[in-house]
């Protein structure tokens, strides 16, 4: 080997050796990096497909939730007829009165007085950094003032770069206050020389949604010309019921939480829908559709669109027929066998991975039929005659002019703005995944840009690994500001700055010190671990279905790994590359086969060690837990954490019919009697879950299982 005093021959030999050694090392290294890259992408896919499956769940129960909302909201039918703003606000003001609220001397948090000053804003930021909580009185006061301010704003805010040199646009924050702090730290606070646009989805998922709202609303009032807020699809109380914001508020404000939530509901509907920079860059939260009409959007009474679950839906059947005609397909209904096949043929998650048009159609047809069937069953069970309100078909909507367009069409305009996603293919399709809005193609973008002389669109709504992403030939920019959204290290957040030249400049960040100190490998491993944990939980939740699927291929208890992959996909339908993921999920025997029963037991053991509850019931609960919680919160109108027996009874009938659990009236009464609820006939959420478990046990299949032991660890 080479020493510096070696002969030239020696040195020559060393050079040749060094070359070979280098090639070898580089080969290994490149293979290692490629493996990491594959793991990173697979992990991302896992998170996205699970998120998608969750939203799919929501869509299946979507009509059911709507129905519940209508049933359990008092005088809801009357509300629809009356103009929203006037009559109700007087009542609202009385209910949410804060002036009589006393703030004790012991309160050390910030005290706000109106009109707000910059000092109030900085005091709030400091307080939140110290983990203090703003007194309910000030929260309500702030919300009142915010609502007052928002009411005078137009639907589309107009911003100019000539006043403030640069405009900073931020995307989804989702309750991640640390990200907002980081943005302010890197970019500076809002001020007369620093304009900000926040593009929706301030709340849900993250644990500090309320703090984010307070900060944003405060800056909005202090610098009304420099701070602009767009509404996102999560600025919607129905969505908040499911995704955590409602829970957060009730936990932080046990006494006044309900008032705060009610006020917030009234603030959300007054948030502007879009922002225009220099009349050239349109900023909306979700996207557009081929019927997006900015002139109409300017004129709509935006506050009437309270929630996505109360608006009208596009009638899918007609749109399908239209598309079928365009494709020259047969209009006949799909046979049941075809339906099953179609459902499993549609694996992909977001728009960027949408399957071929044919599959999407079959999928939406299947979803529509399933939901329709279940609604019919629900209705029959509780004997409700629902007057069929006039539902407009998609084609009829398209043909209407501005002046004639009824409220439904206007709602759809807002729905599209808040919920749509871009897709690579041309055209415009229903966004059946999210249950609202469309998938819009580059041609739709081009048309809108041309029609209104715009240069490009900025939107958010979708998590992006680098915090931002262009598509549609750089005409659509997605900006996402919640870093580590799925897990620490999963993605960066970003914000974009635009100067008078309207050329975007990006700043990326990751709001977690741990993420910085980790190497790429460690970061990927950590996120990967989290993804696989979530995936194993999902697999466990489908134990019975998987077991049957495996049995169908082999009765002796062994299957090949190839079979495993096929079977798992047919049950879970997540569209994941199972063969790539297999090593992390399954340990096979030397001959490449798997004893599936013991594999399923291993999965159960992992979950059980976290919950101490019997596996059969656990499985059902896991599958339905978030749905159950959402349903409970819908019924619990006043957010007291309690629902009455009567409400429970009615809801249970609906839900059990929906989930194929047969139970007679007597069965329900027995069930309720065995719940430990307090004397005035109220049930809290834990008891609600207990009831569910008990019912599952009393059905024939479950009776075979040994009785469950009560455990303090409730879900």
């Amino acid at each position: 080997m080479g020493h510096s005093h070696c002969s030239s021959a020696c040195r020559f030999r060393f050079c040749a050796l060094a070359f070979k050694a280098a090639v070898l090392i580089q080969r290994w290294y490149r293979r290692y990096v490629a493996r990491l890259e594959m793991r990173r992408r697979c992990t991302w896919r896992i998170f996205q497909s699970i998120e998608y499956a969750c939203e799919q769940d929501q869509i299946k129960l979507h009509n059911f939730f709507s129905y519940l909302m209508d049933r359990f909201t008092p005088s809801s039918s009357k509300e629809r007829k009356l103009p929203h703003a006037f009559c109700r606000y007087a009542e609202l003001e009385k209910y949410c009165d804060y002036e009589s609220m006393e703030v004790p001397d012991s309160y050390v948090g910030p005290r706000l007085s109106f009109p707000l000053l910059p000092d109030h804003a900085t005091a709030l930021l400091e307080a939140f950094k110290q983990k203090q909580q703003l007194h309910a009185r000030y929260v309500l006061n702030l919300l009142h003032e915010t609502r007052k301010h928002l009411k005078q704003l137009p639907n589309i805010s107009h911003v100019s770069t000539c006043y403030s040199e640069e405009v900073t646009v931020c995307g989804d924050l989702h309750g991640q206050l640390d990200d907002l702090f980081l943005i302010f730290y890197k970019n500076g606070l809002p001020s007369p020389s620093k304009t900000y646009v926040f593009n929706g989805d301030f709340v849900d998922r993250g644990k500090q949604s309320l703090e984010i709202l307070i900060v944003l609303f405060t800056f909005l009032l202090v610098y009304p010309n420099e701070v602009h807020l767009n509404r996102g699809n999560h600025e919607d109380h129905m969505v908040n019921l499911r995704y955590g914001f409602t829970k957060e508020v009730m936990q932080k404000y046990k006494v006044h939480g309900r008032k705060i939530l009610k006020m917030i509901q009234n603030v959300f509907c007054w948030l502007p829908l879009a922002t225009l920079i220099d009349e050239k860059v349109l900023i909306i939260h979700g996207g557009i559709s081929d019927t997006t009409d900015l002139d109409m959007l300017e004129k709509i009474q935006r506050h009437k669109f309270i929630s996505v679950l109360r608006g009208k839906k596009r009638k899918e059947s007609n749109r399908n027929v239209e598309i079928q005609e365009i494709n020259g397909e047969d209009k006949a209904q799909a046979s049941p066998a075809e339906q099953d096949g179609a459902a499993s043929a549609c694996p992909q998650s977001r728009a960027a991975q949408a399957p071929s048009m044919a599959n999407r159609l079959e999928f939406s047809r299947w979803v529509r039929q399933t939901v329709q069937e279940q609604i019919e069953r629900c209705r029959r069970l509780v004997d409700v005659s629902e007057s069929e309100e006039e539902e407009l078909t998609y084609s009829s909507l398209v043909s209407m002019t501005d002046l004639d367009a009824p409220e439904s069409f206007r709602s759809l305009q807002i729905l599209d703005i808040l919920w749509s996603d871009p897709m690579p293919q041309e055209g415009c399709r229903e966004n059946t995944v999210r249950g609202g809005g469309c998938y819009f193609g580059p041609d739709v973008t081009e048309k809108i840009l041309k029609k209104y002389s715009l240069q490009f669109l900025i939107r958010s709504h979708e998590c992006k690994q680098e915090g931002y992403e262009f598509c549609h030939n750089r005409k659509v920019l997605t900006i996402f500001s919640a870093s580590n959204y799925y897990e620490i290290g999963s993605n960066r957040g970003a914000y974009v700055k635009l100067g008078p030249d309207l050329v975007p400049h990006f700043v990326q960040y990751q709001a977690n010190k741990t993420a910085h100190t980790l190497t790429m490998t460690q970061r990927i491993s950590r996120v990967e671990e989290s993804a696989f944990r979530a995936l194993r939980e999902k697999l466990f939740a489908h134990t019975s279905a998987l077991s049957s699927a495996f049995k169908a291929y082999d009765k002796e208890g062994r299957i090949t790994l190839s079979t495993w992959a096929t079977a798992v996909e047919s049950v879970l339908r997540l569209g994941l590359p199972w063969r790539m993921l297999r090593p992390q999920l399954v340990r096979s025997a030397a001959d490449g086969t798997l004893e599936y029963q013991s594999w399923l037991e291993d999965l159960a053991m992992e979950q059980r060690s976290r919950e101490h509850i019997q596996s059969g019931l656990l499985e059902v609960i896991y599958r339905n837990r978030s749905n159950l919680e959402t349903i409970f919160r819908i019924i619990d109108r006043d957010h007291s954490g309690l629902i009455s027996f009567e409400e429970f009874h009615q809801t249970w009938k609906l839900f059990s019919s929906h989930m194929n659990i047969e139970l007679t009236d007597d069965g329900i009464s027995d069930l309720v009697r065995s719940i430990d609820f307090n004397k005035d006939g109220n049930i809290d959420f834990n008891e609600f879950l207990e009831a569910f478990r008990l019912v599952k046990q009393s059905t024939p299949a479950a009776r075979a299982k040994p009785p469950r032991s009560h455990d303090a660890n409730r879900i």
Partner: protein
Amino acid sequence: MGLIAEIEKKITEAFEVFDHECNQTVDVREIGSIVRSLGCYPTEAQLHELLAEVEEEEPTGYIHLQKFLPVMTRVLVERSYQPTPEDVLLHAFEALDVNKCGYLTKEELVKYMTEEGEPFTQEEMEDMLSAALDPETNTMRYKDYITLMIVDDV
């Protein structure tokens, strides 16, 4: 399920992970990642040869699954681009460690990786340094690093 069919399924899965537009094509720059994550250890030169086989007549910057599948199937069936054994990797580092100290300095590492063999890009070099270099001594203890690079083959 036949061996070939299973191999084809595996290749298709790996391919689709990088197929962002769901139209059975991937960016040509991702082919290296796909081939390597399927268990192969091609050199850059070997990769270029493979690319020549799967590219279109007039290169478009995209590779079609149709062309990729048969070529990649053959690669896997014939077990081309197999790795050299791990101990040879250790010898490679030792060969570069002229003073036999058990580590390489940052300068040495950068020199060899960016000037010898099939040179790293700046990005590749930075990535390796961030993971391999001990920030206090600015050296790379290659024996420790090797354990990272040894991955279980799928």
